[in-house]
């Protein structure tokens, strides 16, 4: 008597960003290892996340320019419970919210710094973590 094969659950896939028309240049930059932010062509102010209108001067013209990678820690959490199955294997992991020197904040996983050494204002640097041919995600490491 043959036995039905035990079904094997497919490995959970990493959730990936779905770029919008506004955010595509940011993700293109990530893929190239460049931290590109959106600057207003009229008043020059930076904005993040990418969007159509400058909230300071209402201009719809903007350009993406390379921004500095340094920043300081604003807040963090240590994620123990993997709300998405993909992250089960890597939990617990730290997600750091960083005040970038460029004047915006970025949320990304923090690698290589133990939880006990975290404090507001600690310097970190944005790095690039390719997850497949199309997508690279930001990651924070020690400066």
């Amino acid at each position, binding site marked *: 008597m043959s036995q039905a094969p035990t079904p094997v659950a497919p490995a959970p896939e*990493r*959730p*990936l*960003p*779905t*770029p*919008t028309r506004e*955010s595509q240049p940011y993700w293109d930059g990530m893929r190239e290892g460049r931290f590109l932010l959106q600057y207003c062509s009229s008043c020059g102010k930076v904005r*993040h*996340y990418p969007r159509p209108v400058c909230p300071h001067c209402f201009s719809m013209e903007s350009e993406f320019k390379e921004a500095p990678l340094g920043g300081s820690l*604003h*807040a*963090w*959490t*240590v*994620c*123990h*419970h*993997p*709300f*998405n199955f*993909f*992250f089960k294997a*890597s939990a*617990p*992991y730290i*997600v750091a*919210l960083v005040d970038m020197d460029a004047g*915006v*904040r*970025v*949320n*990304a*996983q923090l690698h290589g710094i133990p*939880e006990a050494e975290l*404090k*507001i204002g600690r310097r970190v640097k944005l790095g690039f973590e390719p*997850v497949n041919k199309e*997508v690279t*995600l*930001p990651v924070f490491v020690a400066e």
Partner: protein
Amino acid sequence: MVHPLRDKAAVSGIGETAYTRGTTKSGLALQLEASLKALDDAGIDPRDVDGVIPYFPGGAIAEDFIANLGLKDLTLSAFIPMGGATCVAAIQMAAMAVTTGVCKHVLISVGRTGYSGSRVSTRLQQFPVFAQAAEFELPIGMFAPAQLYAQGARRHMELYGTTARQFAEVAVVTRQHAILNGNVVMNKPLTVEDHHASRMISDPFRLFDCSLESDGGAAVIISATDRAKDLRKPLVTIAGVAEGHPDSPASIAQRPDILEFGLVKSAPRAYAMAGVGPKDIDVAEIYDCFTFTVIRQLEILGFCKAGEGGPFVMDGRIALGGELPINTHGGLLSQGHVVGLNHVIELTRQLRGEAGRAQVKQAETGLVTGYGDMGDGSIAILRRAA
């Protein structure tokens, strides 16, 4: 000048199902069951409801109420996409509708299969406001509210010295209140040690810092005060009500101050509309998706200064018999998660004098908040008619 909405609308009926973990009923059935109870509580013929604001996404649309309850002439149908701030914000819309004569009786309903239906991360993807988080934060492993709000809690601890012991106090007191209520999911005593021993979800939030995933339905009827005074139950009026949206509303990360919520804008408006201040509040039902969220809202509401919410909740101050009893029904932390409509129901009971063993003595004025959708904040101040 007295605000034209002050005390002109009333909570005329309240109803709720059993709060459980596990149900065979649909979200729609739970809403209809709670709605029929609320209509019976008010003494209103279901067919006379002419405004419906169902929670979205909750499995019901206003048309379902025509089909099931035989509404004769629906004049207002709306969704309010504000997550946990929805129900109290709906009171504002309902109050506007009944005081202008657009509606006679507006039904606000929630049905939720948070335990037996889809889980929180799945549900969130239905909320338009989470699109940015889905693009920028879900891929790095940060999407659930317990993760998104944890960073603010951590920052508060670092800036002000707020402690896990203070978080635990909120959970423990809320559980004590739940046990007095009876219609609750969590009915066993909780100790500070139990809290500290519970597993870490997203630091600094442990399991018992987080609200429940439960099944249940709740409904509230809002009517013009002139009509409500002739209905079945003691009159409870809406003295002040407001909704507020934070700057950078769809991204906490980009918010100038990640500890500022919509309540920063709405609370002063609601107090002004009602003509009262924090010192006039006898009982408060505070949206408690997380223990820390309660602590921070108490600061924003003016019960203490920024940074002092942690010490404020200690020493029995927020328990029954204390200076400001909160979440006298057990809240989202211990009673059940129906997006805070249970908070509105409990406040109404308190002001009617129907709160049983959890009754706050001489409760005349109380407030209820809603919080959600990345930090929208709504507030209603209710009072017993003199």
